[in-house]
């Protein structure tokens, strides 16, 4: 009887326990993980390059942000070139050779393009210098006005004192 109860309990426990899943072989886990890591790296590099390339039919949009067909085709080409081992610079150089430097959303910092990079900083420094100069002049003008006002007050006080003395009866 005890043996029968033990068998029933064991069978019930076996049925109630969660289904045992045989783990997949290690190779089956590792390969997709490696592939997905490589894919995500490729996707990230594609995004990085695509963000810097201008959509040819849009206004100021990158091929990463534009949903247009040509942008998506260009993005696919970027990805394909990166997959074949080209560097991001190689891919950018390819697009520049086809579309000129116009295709780059940020022009290369060389030659006349340096104006675009240096002008804001120079204008900012020039503005700061102008403000500093103006403030200095204002301050100097205020101080000299204060000094002259103080001097005149002193002078007026002296005059008043003299007048007071002169009005005092001997």
């Amino acid at each position, binding site marked *: 009887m005890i043996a029968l109860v033990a068998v029933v309990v064991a069978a019930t426990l076996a049925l109630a326990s969660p289904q045992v899943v045989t783990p997949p072989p290690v190779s089956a886990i590792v390969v997709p993980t490696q592939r997905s890591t490589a894919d995500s790296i490729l996707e990230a590099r594609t995004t990085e390059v695509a963000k810097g390339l201008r959509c*040819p*039919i849009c206004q100021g949009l990158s091929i990463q942000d534009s949903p247009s*067909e*040509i942008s998506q*085709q*260009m993005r*696919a*080409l970027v990805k394909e*070139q990166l997959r074949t081992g080209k560097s991001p610079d190689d891919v950018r150089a*390819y697009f*520049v*050779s*086809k*579309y*000129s430097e*116009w295709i780059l959303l940020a022009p290369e910092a060389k030659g006349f393009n340096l104006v675009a990079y240096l002008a804001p900083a120079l204008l900012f420094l020039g503005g700061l210098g102008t403000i500093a100069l103006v403030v200095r002049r204002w301050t100097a003008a205020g101080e000299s006005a204060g000094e002259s006002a103080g001097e005149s007050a002193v002078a007026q006080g002296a005059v008043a004192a003299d007048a007071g003395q002169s009005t005092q009866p001997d």
Partner: protein
Amino acid sequence: MNWRRAALAAAAAAPVIALLAWGMTRDPKEIVSPLPGRNAPEFALGVFAPGEPPLARKVGDTIALASMRGKIVVFNFWASWCLECRVEHKDLSFVAQQNASKSVQFVGVLYNDVPSAGLEWIGKMGGQAYPSVLDQGARTAIDYGLYGVPETFVIDAAGRVAYKHTGPIPAALLQAKIDSLLAAPAVQSPAVQSPASR
């Protein structure tokens, strides 16, 4: 008025105004193509619209730039959804027929469109004198730095891009370009640019 101060302000503002004025003279939509003068990118594309005799090619045939060395190639990108392509269509067919006996090859490229729509459009437009090919994934279009249609490339006998035209190309202009290339002395073919160099 402090004239010295006014002159200083004017001198500071002048370069900025000059830069802005120069910017106003430029068309922001105009992209200067680096291709003219360089080797034309290679292509090998399948015919989907045969064209008409004597310039007809069989559907499914491959037209490759490399096989047209020694000929002037007029390479025109078009689409059935492109309104301006209607403007130039008759001119292109007319010039193609006018030069059929010369060493000139016209090739149309369907850009981001489906062949059935392209064929229907050709039918509605009263035919196309020369064959048109399909450009899957717009790879050739990107290789040619295309940013819209219509765009026409005239490639010389040595395989170099001699001229690029954006927008509808007038018959007289196209004929003048072809004539100037036909009149030019033969030049040595430059090294063929490999498609693998993309």
